[in-house]
């Protein structure tokens, strides 16, 4: 079986598992919404200020939500030792990792599709005319988040205090991604929307570096 086919099967399994209950997705959306709402109480921004701080707020909300929602990705396999069963399957470890990454990417993107319009309404930011470019920025940024996040979820699953450990491992490593994603989003929210190619290239570079690293290291990550 090819890696792509195995990853697709595992992706289907993750989606089936999640859409039976949708508990992870619901919790993620509500959590990110709470962060967005609390921010407006904490800073009471005017229209100009929300255009300036909005991108940072959005990405902080997604980074925090991601660092919480990515834990069950491997943590959920602990309860019945189902990861051992997955490892016994005749598929490459990278397929297991890739299936989970794609599932997490999809979950976070769904959360973003729901939350970004809500944010636009609450903070009076117009999305007209920038939707396509915004999707590009969010896909590249979210991909970097889930690639590192899924790998660290596999690491944290074997530790004590794993729910707390994952944000500790994940958030500092995402610092460059946060800067690039916020700057790219800010240039789209500006009065004269423009796609910042330098930051977009940086996001793509971040994704490639860590995707390659997780491909090279996944054997060690998932070994017994």
């Amino acid at each position, binding site marked *: 079986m090819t890696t792509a086919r195995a990853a697709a099967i595992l992706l289907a399994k993750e989606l089936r598992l999640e859409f039976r209950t949708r508990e992870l997705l619901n919790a993620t959306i509500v959590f990110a919404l709470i962060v967005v709402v609390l921010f407006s109480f904490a800073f009471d921004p005017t229209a100009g200020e929300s255009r300036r701080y909005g991108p940072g707020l959005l990405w902080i909300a997604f980074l925090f939500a991601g660092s919480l929602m990515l834990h069950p990705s491997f943590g959920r396999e602990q309860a019945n030792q189902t990861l051992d069963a997955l490892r016994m399957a005749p598929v490459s470890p990278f397929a297991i990792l890739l299936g989970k990454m794609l599932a997490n990417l999809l979950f976070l993107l769904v959360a973003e599709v729901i939350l970004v319009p809500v944010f636009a309404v609450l903070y009076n930011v117009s999305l007209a005319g920038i939707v396509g470019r915004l999707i590009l920025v969010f896909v590249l940024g979210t991909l970097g988040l889930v690639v590192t996040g899924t790998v660290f979820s596999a690491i944290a699953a074997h530790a004590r205090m794993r729910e707390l*450990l994952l944000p500790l491992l994940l958030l500092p*490593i995402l*610092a*460059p991604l946060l800067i690039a994603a916020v700057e790219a989003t800010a240039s789209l929210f500006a009065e004269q929307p423009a796609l910042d190619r330098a930051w977009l290239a940086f996001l793509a570079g971040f994704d490639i570096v860590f995707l390659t690293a997780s491909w090279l*290291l996944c054997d*060690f*990550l998932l070994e017994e």
Partner: protein
Amino acid sequence: MNRSAGFPMKSRITSRAIAAALIFFAGYAALFIAPDEATMHQIQRIFYFHLGCWMAMFTALSIALVANISWLVTRKPKWDWLGVSAVEVGVVSCTAGLATGVLWGKPAWGIWWTWDARLTTAFILWLLYISYLLLRGLIEEPQRRATLSAVFGIFAFLDAPLVYASNRLWRTQHPAPVIFGGPDAGLNPTMGKVLVICIAAMLFVAILALVDRYRLERLRHEFDELRVAADARDSGSPSALIASSAKDSI
């Protein structure tokens, strides 16, 4: 088996004496031999140690990367011991570098801290390697701890250039490289010599700390093995049962 093999008492005393002498001489050179700097005057003398801290950090973290990769490839416990020792020395050097930088920043720039590329990179590196040490403390099983922390260590090292590049694109205040920074750059020859002495002294101390920490890690490992062996040997005998049940009740 010789428990302190490879690093006998006599050479430990000698190496400490050399380190003390080097640090003393480096301090003297930085404070009294190095010429006065044109714009910052006396304050600039902290630079010799500031740079020394960063050199020690880069050396230690590079050793940690090599150790992490070597552990994954060879699975020899010594690479795991080296990895954790190097990260600890790197974190301490990073802390010293940040502290001397903050002390220097206030009189030189008028502010303690700024979110410049190099400062931010150092700070994020510090956080990342603290997380590495936290991670190690939270995984019980030695093999797994070694492997997973090695993977995280490699990820952390890969992140460093990305943090630097992102902040470089964003904003920067730290001075452009003076020493290797192009035709106008350069250092007074005496300053250069003092700098070399200070860097050598800091590196020597860092390596010494690393070797000591490595020995400690190895002794811990040997202690654990001996304890397991002793437990296995004693199990079954009545006194061991009493001892183990007494331990359980505590």
